[in-house]
């Protein structure tokens, strides 16, 4: 996945296998040749969605597939609404959300400080890098059962799985962000006799923030995967559990309804990270229009 040398660590590109950034770059052309968007451009995405929905409906109604293989959109919507009105959906979503948010927080927090340490200390970088890369190379899905054995089938194991998945992009971005700080600005802080805390607060954190938040955006979407992986292995509640349950009982509408809910959850988290970016990095947007 992320093949970045934490030790030699030149800050090459801002984004790397960063799905979020890829999504951004698809919409915003890299060379800002600003063509004014026509008002109807905003209707293109919803219109395309309707087309996809129509195709789905046609396939479901064609009679080629049994309804438990390809249920109609209407039956999925009905199932979703049923879950929502009974309160079951909210309950399961709450379970997953709690795992996701705790895992995200733990993973991001640990990765940030570890990344900071690696960026600041060469011995630490040399000592930890091989293990961190090895950790990243381990398929999380494969060690999820192990984690469940060790930490039990309740929230803790899911939080850990989630934190592990979130960890690496955040770590890599923190290291790159911290290493991208111009040495001249460090000289300036030294010349002004800034304390280590002042240097962190007034230079390191704001200078690295654009890249760190890039990592947070990737991590936010990955965190949902982490929780679901954990729930797939063993759980008694959560959206991943619903999917597993639906599959076992051939309740395909339930599976699809849960998948859509998960997608919405991931999108909301990504949106929150993007919102945070707008708030904290307002100065970047100012710079785009001199």
């Amino acid at each position, binding site marked *: 996945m992320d093949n970045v040398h934490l030790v030699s660590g030149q800050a090459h590109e801002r984004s790397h296998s960063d799905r979020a950034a890829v999504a951004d770059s698809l919409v915003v052309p890299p060379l800002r040749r600003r063509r004014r968007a026509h008002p109807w451009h905003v209707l293109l995405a919803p219109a395309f969605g309707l087309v996809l929905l129509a195709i789905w409906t046609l396939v479901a109604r064609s009679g080629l597939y049994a309804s438990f293989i390809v249920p109609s959109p209407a039956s999925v919507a009905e199932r979703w609404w049923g879950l929502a009105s009974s309160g079951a959906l909210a309950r399961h979503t709450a379970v997953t959300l709690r795992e996701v948010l705790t895992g995200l927080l733990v993973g991001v927090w640990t990765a940030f400080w570890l990344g900071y340490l690696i960026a600041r200390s060469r011995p630490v970088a040399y000592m930890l890098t091989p293990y961190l890369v090895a950790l990243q190379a381990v398929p999380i899905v494969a060690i999820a059962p192990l984690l469940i054995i060790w930490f039990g089938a309740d929230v803790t194991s899911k939080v850990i799985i989630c934190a592990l998945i979130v960890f690496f992009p955040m770590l890599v971005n923190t290291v790159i962000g911290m290493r991208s700080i111009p040495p*001249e600005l460090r*000289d300036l802080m030294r*010349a*002004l*006799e800034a304390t280590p805390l002042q240097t962190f607060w*007034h230079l390191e954190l704001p200078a690295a923030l654009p890249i760190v938040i890039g990592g947070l955006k990737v991590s936010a979407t990955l965190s949902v995967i982490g929780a679901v992986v954990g729930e797939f292995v063993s759980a008694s509640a959560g959206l991943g559990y619903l999917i597993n349950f639906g599959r076992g009982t051939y309740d395909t509408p339930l599976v699809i309804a849960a998948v859509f809910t998960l997608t919405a959850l991931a999108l909301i988290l990504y949106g929150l990270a993007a919102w945070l970016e707008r708030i904290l990095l307002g*100065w970047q947007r100012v710079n785009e229009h001199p």
Partner: protein
Amino acid sequence: MISTAILAAEHITHIYRAPEGDVPALDDVSFRLARESFTCLVGPSGCGKSTLLRIMAGLLTPTSGRVLLDGQPLTRAQRRVGIVFQKANLMPWRTVAGNLSLPLELAGLPPAERLERTRAMLELTGLEGFAGTYPAALSGGMAQRVAIGRALIHDPEVLLLDEPFGSLDALTREQMSEELLRIWAHHRKTVLMVTHSISEAVLLADRVLVMGPRPARLVADVPIPLQRPRSLELLHQPDFVALTERVRRAIRLA
């Protein structure tokens, strides 16, 4: 003379250690800067001028020799020495006013005083209308004005300038020299400025130190007895031209 010196270099030698072999940068450089004097350091590019300035700022420890600030050995960077780099080196996430007030924030001044001093500095540097502007929207000359203001705002005794106008176009550069003269008249500091422009050095300085090629040593110390206040008009006068010729010759002979 000795008692009025505020910053002194004593037998400074610096060697950059590299795997391919050692690179000598400075060879036994000594000089003293009189209080409130303006000294320019000229020399061929890559001769170690910037290295010397970093050493004088306490940002780099010389291989041997020492720097004295007010008679005390300088072992680390100090607030009493302000520094302006070749690039403006502003923080892109801070506005012009925010960049100016950074040294005051780090020194822990109360907000009211920070505001007051920042306003005064905006005025002095001619940046009144740009307090809320971000650096990316500034021209090179304006950015460098902010950098100079930032170096002056906490009132350091010594100001070190490392080719501050090196990246500016010729026209802006002349304007900025004049601007610097005006600001210096308001804030008399001991200034040491590295430049590769001989006319800039003669226009600004009381004294021009000439460095030879690598490993650099001081080859000439040219006093500039031109009357102050000075302006760009000086550039065409015979005694100014004669002084630039003297400096030029010293560089060529080095």
